[in-house]
């Protein structure tokens, strides 16, 4: 037996509508001591007959957290930071970066490079100020459980055909299992890159510890509000 509140949740309709339906005799109901009760089986039968959707477990649907958890620092540590990465062309530096990245053994590295190059063909991932964020076009669902960001400081700046025409000196390669996660990290990274002190720091950065420290600080200011 369900009461009026249960039925409202089950049908996801306002109470006023259910009351009216009761008055008009459109919904099966029992009345006892001035209160309404619904037989769950009757209600389900009625809903099937009229093709009306019933929410089976009438908890509020688990809303997907619109902002996935996880911070930049973790995924950057997973990907690693590399200095003096060699290469003259986009393809060469990407290949280098992929081979440097600690990846699970089943990952086909050539294939991954290919994916990254396909994305570059659609439009450069060089976002300006000498920074590029190469990533595959589609999320790599099977390969990763969480995102991996590899940071490569290039030996020589490479022409990525970036928006502002500046040669790229640092790559942040992003590999993520879902689009949502990808966007999450992308928005965090772009927050950092908007900070001019950070981009100036990147040009001088020579060791991973200083880099991670800088990222940690920026993320703290992002989460702190």
């Amino acid at each position, binding site marked *: 037996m369900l009461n009026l509140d249960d039925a409202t949740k089950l*049908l996801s*309709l*306002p109470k*006023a*509508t259910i009351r*009216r*339906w*009761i*008055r*008009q*005799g*459109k*919904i099966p109901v029992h*009345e006892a001591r001035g209160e309404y009760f619904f037989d769950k089986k009757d209600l389900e039968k009625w809903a099937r*007959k*009229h*093709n*009306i959707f019933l929410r089976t477990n009438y908890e509020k649907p688990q809303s997907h957290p619109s902002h996935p958890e996880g911070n930049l620092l973790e995924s950057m540590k997973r990907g690693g930071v590399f200095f003096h990465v060699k290469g003259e062309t986009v393809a060469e530096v990407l290949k280098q970066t992929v081979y440097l990245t600690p990846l699970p053994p089943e990952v086909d590295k050539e294939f991954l490079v290919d994916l990254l190059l396909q994305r570059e063909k659609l439009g450069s991932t060089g976002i300006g100020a000498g920074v590029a964020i190469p990533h595959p076009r589609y999320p790599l669902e099977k390969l990763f459980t969480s995102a991996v960001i590899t940071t490569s400081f290039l030996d020589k700046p490479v022409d990525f055909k970036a928006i502002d025409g500046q040669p790229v000196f640092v790559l942040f390669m992003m590999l993520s299992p879902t689009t949502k996660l990808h966007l999450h990290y992308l928005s965090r990274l772009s927050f950092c890159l908007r900070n001019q002190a950070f981009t100036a720091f990147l040009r001088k950065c020579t060791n991973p510890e200083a880099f991670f420290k800088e990222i940690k600080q920026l993320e703290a200011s992002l989460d702190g509000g």
Partner: protein
Amino acid sequence: MHRFFLRLHERLQLIIIASIVGLCGGVGSVALNRSLAAVFEWLDTLRGSWYSFLFPAVGAALSSIFLNQIARDGGGHGVPEVIYSISQRGGLLRFRSSFSRLIACLLTIASGGSAGPEAPVVISGASIGSNIGTYFRLKDRQRVIVVGCGAAAAIASIFNAPVTGIVFTLEAILGEWTAVNLIPVAIASVVGTEISRILQGNQIPFQYHAVAISPWNLGACLGLAALTAMGSVALIRTLRFIHRHAPKMIPITWVSAAAGGVLVGVIGLGFPSVLGEGYDVIRCMIAENYSASLLVLGLTVLTKILATSLTIGSGGSGGLFAPCLVIGSFTGQFYHRALVTALPSVSWAGGGYFALLGMAGVISGVLQAPMTGVFLVAEITGSYHFLISVVLVAVISVTVSHFFEPVSVYHQELVSRGELIKPRTDRQILSHLNVLELLETDCQIIHPEMRLKDLVSMIQHSHRNYFPVEDSQSGEFLGMIHLDDIRAYLFDPYLHDTILVEQVMDRDVPRVSLEDDLAYIFEVFDKTHSWSLPVVRDGKFIGLISKATILDHYRKELLVNEEI
């Protein structure tokens, strides 16, 4: 008893109630019929005297006083009230309507007023049905059907015509033919008929001796159909004219009813056959015992139309059914006489045949209900062998009169008040839904002195495109911001600090209130091309109403309305 009853299956409940309603409706109509005959007979002894022309006036005045002052129920024929109640009040009718109309109409008709006992019987039956339905705690949807049962039983028992009762109810009262309606209505109709047969014998109201019908007669039907359609239109328009102007000329209802009665009495001096319900005249005509000149017949049709409009339009009480039949039969007789005079060599089927066809034609035309006309004539004569001609006349008469008067006489009042809501229409669903059920209250409220920056950070966490603006002190609703209005400034961070909400908000956004009906709200939506409107009560914002939510609810409403 109650509890046992409530446990039964819904259809079985309805069948049981339909039988009870049929029983009561049948008894009611027999009672009215008997008392009408008795009072009419009693007054007949006085009818020869010089003052007899005042009878209709006294009767109409008494009936009007009784209805308005004592029973406090409206005058007129009253069927529109039943239809209104069915379409908007879930079939609720006052209990006193079950007898007040009967008494009022008894006074009007027995004194000579030109009206019929059917409509009062229908209202009485409907009201009995409604109250029995309420007693058994029926829901609106079922009560409506039971009201129809009462009407069906009344018509069926007064004419001793079960099928006519069913057809009339479905066609003119409920307005929809569905199996769910049909079964209880048919049962009530059958019970009602049987009651009247037990109480007053199974007699065919109008005995008609079948004659051979030559193809010539079928051709002549076309002309008769046109003539009956004219008669119907004339009756509808005269009635409407008097109904509109009588209250203006004489504001006191009972005086106006009396004045109408005097005029009817005067007409009655010249044409006594227009007085009362007029079934005796019809009986003579169909038995081929009536003879009058072409001129007298034609004038009788016109005076009957006038007398009926005067009686009912001025505030007397009674129905249009019987007058329609009288007008129809005189029209038929008139047409027959004209045919015989013009083409004496053809063998015409006789005055009775044409009188019957005329009855079907006028009933169909006035009520916009062809099947009612067909079955009524077939059943009251107990003869089906001229069915082809009846169908022909009824259908053509409806078509022609529909051209001039597209709305049935029962629906006119409701249509002019904008209250006719047919079952299973968009309007019905909209009239059921109300703003409160559709209100969305999960809105983020903003204040006029907020900067765009604050709004942008709010937008980040909101799933809505509309933001109501309230005065931060008084809480008064000031206007709305739609995402579209500020899109241009959103991506310019320089403006985030310089623009205030009050600079970009829409101040004269149309507002709706909780009491507005959805038809009006849709008008506003269409006019403003907006997707959401603010609902405001006492100057304060209480929620949004949006097209998307309405669609969601509308569809659910449609789904539960489906009969399976």
